[in-house]
């Protein structure tokens, strides 16, 4: 049996997680290919939950597939689409099928996705979902009723170290840990000196921190993120470095930058590991890991 993500977190090793994105439809070939490619290289794989509020094959289905294929899934659960009853029910199903890790997220607004007229639920928020998990582990649901057979999860959450203003995010971060988050995967960070400052604060808390790394694929993509993705700032010198890559070489440059950042995070022991988000280029994760000296 492969080591659990929790064991990896507790081992003291430099932990690496990545993502697989379920498809829009029932053709699971590409996701299966990514799982096959990554399952023995990373410590766990997040399975995204209708990312960017775009309706897709469910994260629970994707996480089961990772499990069936011999990988270690981290089930991403947002509070956007399910009320507290549906979220708890899905946690029971996940636990019964051997899914051991959950990442709790509030979720993007439905307005940002492809079902703009849908009802956004948000019956719970990310910290309340974490607390619900810890309650289920004690055999009680949110209604106060007893469970016949409980659950056990390694539960985590996210934080945006470059949010502006930062202090409200940090207050939420502390509440997530108080509610039971054992690990934190951060929103993408690019300014590592800034991230070091965040870690000076964050390492005082009893949670493992994995720095978020989003693969840059081109200079326009970096500019797009700066303009449109809350809490993500790609510094000008990285944009210029991306732009300096010759025609058709931007992706290779992005892989080099991601590898270089991961290597520095690891060499300087900034945090407990990294979470690599290759958004649509999951097949490049092994190359990023090679560039970082991890493979």
């Amino acid at each position, binding site marked *: 049996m492969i080591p659990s993500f929790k064991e990896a977190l507790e081992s003291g090793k430099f932990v690496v997680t990545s993502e697989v994105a379920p498809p829009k439809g029932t053709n699971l070939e590409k996701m299966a290919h990514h799982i096959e490619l990554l399952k023995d290289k990373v410590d766990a794989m997040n399975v995204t939950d209708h990312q960017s509020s775009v309706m897709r094959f469910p994260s629970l289905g994707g996480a089961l597939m990772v499990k069936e294929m011999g990988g270690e899934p981290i089930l991403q659960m947002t509070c956007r689409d399910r009320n507290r009853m549906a979220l708890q029910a899905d946690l029971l199903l996940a636990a019964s099928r051997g899914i051991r890790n959950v990442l709790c997220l509030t979720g993007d607004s439905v*307005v940002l996705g492809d079902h703009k007229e849908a009802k956004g639920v948000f019956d719970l928020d990310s910290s309340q979902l974490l607390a619900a998990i810890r309650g289920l582990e004690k055999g009680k649901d949110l209604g106060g009723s007893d469970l016949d057979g409980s659950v056990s999860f390694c539960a985590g959450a996210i934080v945006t170290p470059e949010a502006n203003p930062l202090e409200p995010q940090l207050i939420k971060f502390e509440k997530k840990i108080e509610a039971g988050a054992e690990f934190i995967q951060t929103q993408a960070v690019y300014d590592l000196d800034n991230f070091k400052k965040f870690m000076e604060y964050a390492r005082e808390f009893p949670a493992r921190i994995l720095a978020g790394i989003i693969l840059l694929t081109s200079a326009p993509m970096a500019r797009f993120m700066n303009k449109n993705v809350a809490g993500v700032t790609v510094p000008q010198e990285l944009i210029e470095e991306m732009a300096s890559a010759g025609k058709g070489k931007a992706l290779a440059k992005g892989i080099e930058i991601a590898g270089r950042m991961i290597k520095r995070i690891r060499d300087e022991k900034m945090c407990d590991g990294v979470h690599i988000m290759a958004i649509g280029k999951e097949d490049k994760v092994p190359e990023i890991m090679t560039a970082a000296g991890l493979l």
Partner: protein
Amino acid sequence: MIRSITQQKRDEELDQLLDGLGRVFIVGCGTCVTLTRTGGVPEVAEMKRTLSSKGKIITGDVVLPVACDNLTKEALAEYGGQIRQADALLIMTCAFGIQTIANHSDKLVVPALDTLFIGKETGLGQFDEICTQCGTCILGETGGVCPVTSCHKGLVNGPCGGTNNGKCEIDEAKDCAWTLIYERLKALDRLGSMKKLQKPRNHQGEPSPGKFKL
């Protein structure tokens, strides 16, 4: 003052709603819809012109002082003759007015407006929703800013990851409620209440539809 904030329906929708209804009596209101310029005297006059140009016969029109008031019954009675000649009442008031009128008339009512929210005028020509009547007020812990209403997701434990320089992820014209709450609590030296882990909200403070008896 509490205001009902409305917006005129699109022409296509209105045309569809009035399809086959040749004779129309138009009702406006002198209160909220006059303030928002969606159902006052000028807008009713404009609607008359528009519908006439589309071949409708306008049997009459009135701008009631306060359409949601019970006096509406008497006010409508004064126009009994013109209303009787109409196939439908086209109502340029908020949904409170429409339903009040529907209660006092046996005619078909057709809304000309969509009621967006109950809010207040926070600046010249600017209206904001500030309370959704959830029945479980938490303003005492949020410095008087309501996250149930003013946060797009109604979050009670702080901002989501979509907060961006004090603005909301869905619209940069909308303030992030949790940035406002944070600034207010910080100024009051009460950030402790933001640090308290809030339990899931009771969404059944008053199970919908609300009903209250003194």
